């Protein structure tokens, strides 16, 4: 197991370098950010040249990348155009998005798995058909539609919550945005769990457990659910990274100043340090989440061994 973890960690290095270089390359391909700084006014060449030199924009791409990576390893993620260090942007954005993701994941786990088990056990019954239809609707309606509708309904019409989230973004204000963010994945978790459960109800070991006369809750939780959760855990694991990076729409609707917002601003203003810095962290989150998922398999299914 220890050797497995070390090997996985070592594999992360090329993935990390490759992905950051790709991101760097893509932001670089967006073009020169200096002209846009001046708005509709054409920059005078001297000031533009001065800014380019300060930002190393005249160097070839590989050299810029090396400078960037060297700075990262000394803990310097660069500066956004408004003079704020990217590190401090991360410090304010990541906690907010992590809280939002936690809320979303909890919704996915609790509601998604519960609905999945329910429908999986009652296959073909009206409950099953109803939930399936519901998940179909949720998957097909775009997030920004559900977002705006729920925001208007709960925020303006009913007045239960505030339509926007305050800069501090405490957990209680994130419940509605978290639900909106979770909805689509939640529907997938429900469907995944349902299929998995439905398959395993016919498995031999389950028949054995029933024949042994084990209590029903023990059969479901220890035997049925534990085996059925493997694909679900894989999905939720990769979803963590997806939710954190993909929260742009939800964060925009509810005015949450998190990772999605900073990424959006960075891309809009062609600010390479912001975009590359944030995506670098997201890449790390993806990698670690994947590793944890792989390790969790052994907990769920003792037959899985690592070498």
């Amino acid at each position, binding site marked *: 197991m220890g050797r497995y973890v070390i090997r996985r960690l070592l594999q992360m290095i090329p993935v990390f370098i490759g992905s950051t270089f790709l991101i760097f390359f893509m932001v670089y391909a*967006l*073009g020169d*950010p200096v*002209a*846009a*700084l*001046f*708005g*509709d*006014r*054409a920059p*005078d*060449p*001297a*000031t533009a040249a*001065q*800014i380019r030199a300060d930002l190393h924009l005249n160097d070839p791409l590989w050299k810029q990348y090396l400078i960037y990576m060297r700075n990262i390893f000394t803990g310097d993620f660069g500066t956004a*155009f*408004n*003079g*704020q260090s990217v590190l*401090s*942007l991360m410090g*304010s954005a990541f906690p907010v998005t992590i809280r939002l993701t*936690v809320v979303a994941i*909890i919704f996915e*786990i*609790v509601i998604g798995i519960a609905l999945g088990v329910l429908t999986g056990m009652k296959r073909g019954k009206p409950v099953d058909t109803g939930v399936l239809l519901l998940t179909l609707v949720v998957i097909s309606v775009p997030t920004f539609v559900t977002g705006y509708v729920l*925001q*208007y309904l709960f*925020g*303006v019409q009913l007045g*239960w*919550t*505030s*339509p*926007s989230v305050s*800069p501090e973004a*405490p*957990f*209680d*204000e994130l*419940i509605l945005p978290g639900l909106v963010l979770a909805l689509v994945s939640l529907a997938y978790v429900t469907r995944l769990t349902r299929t998995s459960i439905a398959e395993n109800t016919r498995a031999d070991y389950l028949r054995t457990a029933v024949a042994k006369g084990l209590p029903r809750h023990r059969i479901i939780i*220890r035997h049925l659910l*534990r085996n059925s959760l493997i694909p679900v855990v894989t999905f939720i694991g990769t979803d963590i990274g997806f939710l954190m990076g993909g929260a742009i729409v939800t*964060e*925009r*609707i509810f*005015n949450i100043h998190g990772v999605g*917002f*900073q990424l*959006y*601003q960075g*891309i*809009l*203003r*062609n600010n390479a340090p912001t975009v590359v810095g944030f995506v670098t962290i997201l890449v790390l989150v993806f990698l670690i989440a994947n590793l944890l998922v792989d390790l969790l398999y052994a*907990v*769920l299914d*003792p037959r899985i061994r690592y070498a």
Partner: protein
Amino acid sequence: MRGATRVKWAVGVTAVALTAAACGSSNDSGGSSSSTGGSGGGIVRASWGDPQNPLEPADTTEVQGGKVLDLIFRGLKKYNPKTAKAENMIASSITSTDSQNFDIKLKSGWTFSNGEPVTSDSFINAWNFDTQLKNSQLNASFFQYIDGYDKVHPDATGAKATATTLSGLTKVSATEFKVRLNQKFALFPDTLGYAAFYPLPQAFFTNRKAWEAKPIGNGPYLISSYAKGSKMQLQKWNGYKGPDPAQNGGVELRVYTDNNTAYTDLQAGNLDLVDDVPVAQLPNVKSDLGNRYINVPAGIIQTIAFPLYSSRWSSANAAKVRQGLSMAIDRKGITQQIFRQTRTPATDWTSPVLGAAGGFKAGLCGDECTFNPTKAKQLIAQGGGLPGGKITISYNADTGSHKEWIDAVCNSINNVLGNNKACVGAPIGTFADFRNRITNKQLNDPFRAGWQMDYPLIQDFLQPQYFTDASSNDSHYSSPTFDKLVNEANAATSSADSVSKFQDAERQLVIDMPAIPLWYQNGSAGFSSNLSNVALNPFSVPVYNEIKVK
């Protein structure tokens, strides 16, 4: 067994988290009621956007940062929020006998909010700092008329500065200094209300980083807290001695990533003032807000500019094609249907906010800017038709929803020419890329252009955009007649003379049509019933200090 404990642990964590979340939700009503309680203290809660650059007077190019500077600074002059006229603020007088040498006297008693007096040094030091090349201030070019600018800030690529101070600035006493320009410029005093010319306290020079984190100015408000990217709280500065003190306790600027959310917050009573009503809400804004909706012209004009450096547009007859295209655009229809009256069809190259005395002349462009399909078709044919039979109009697709109106403009042109492929929109991904292609002369066909005035002067609408080699002459238009008239206008000794000469210059644009004027943009704002006396100034920024809170 080990697995089982982990599952139990996970369930436990979930349960705890859910309980925490549930407790949180019960606090929700308490949280929001306390924030409404805050507005009772006379605070205006207003929507805001994240400033693009550090908040330094000469480094702020866009409206959001400019808002803050207007709240915390006062300059030599201030533009009257109603008439747009430049009126003395810190200056007691600005005099000149030759439109080139100016004598500026300051009123005494002005201080910065940290107690430092505002003296001629506050201006001279600030202006010297703003122009130095190594400080890379984006608005340095505003000082280009001051003598010695080319030494402190040479424009050529790679050039080195040979001086650190502007030779045109001479201190006479603590309350008087002289400015010598490198050319005649009659309207120079009227430009001094612009943010780039604001004074700076010594505190700025001793610790620039600390100052940027919490700027100190000399205006009616002072910044009490600033969380970059999310919120700025400003409170009324009780030490302010100027003639326009704050009528409210303070302003809270909240950054919104989406103006739809700001509008929703206004409806829900969480926000008092939105100064950018989203286009999607325009159909129901009247029923939502009634007379709490403001829609007034601002100093912004939108045009379609032509790359006159391209062989497609440089021929002698091409001006006829440009005039024809101008006549082929149904400005009235587009402003009504797409913009729902938040734009006013343009009939000259300036803006109504200047007023007749300031140089706005309705109908100056005449027939050439009036929709006339028959004449349009004739003119385009006379000019040899569209180059290559078709044109594209470039725009940036990332912000501002330009696609809709560009498509409408092309549609209008296509209808006139009876060819639905004659004109198509050409989206460019980002504003940065769009600006780069314009700056690098890479566009061969017309592109959208917008001009937001820096100061309410006819000079600011014409010279930067159409004078030969001027800083924003994206068309690279060059007309000896136009340049001569502009020079004469700048050399005039009275501002009435100056304005009328500028209008003569503007008439040359009708003939050459380097850019087609489309419409003047309005500022739109909505406010809650907590507020009264809300108005937009000519820059379409709310006049915050005059707002009263119930």
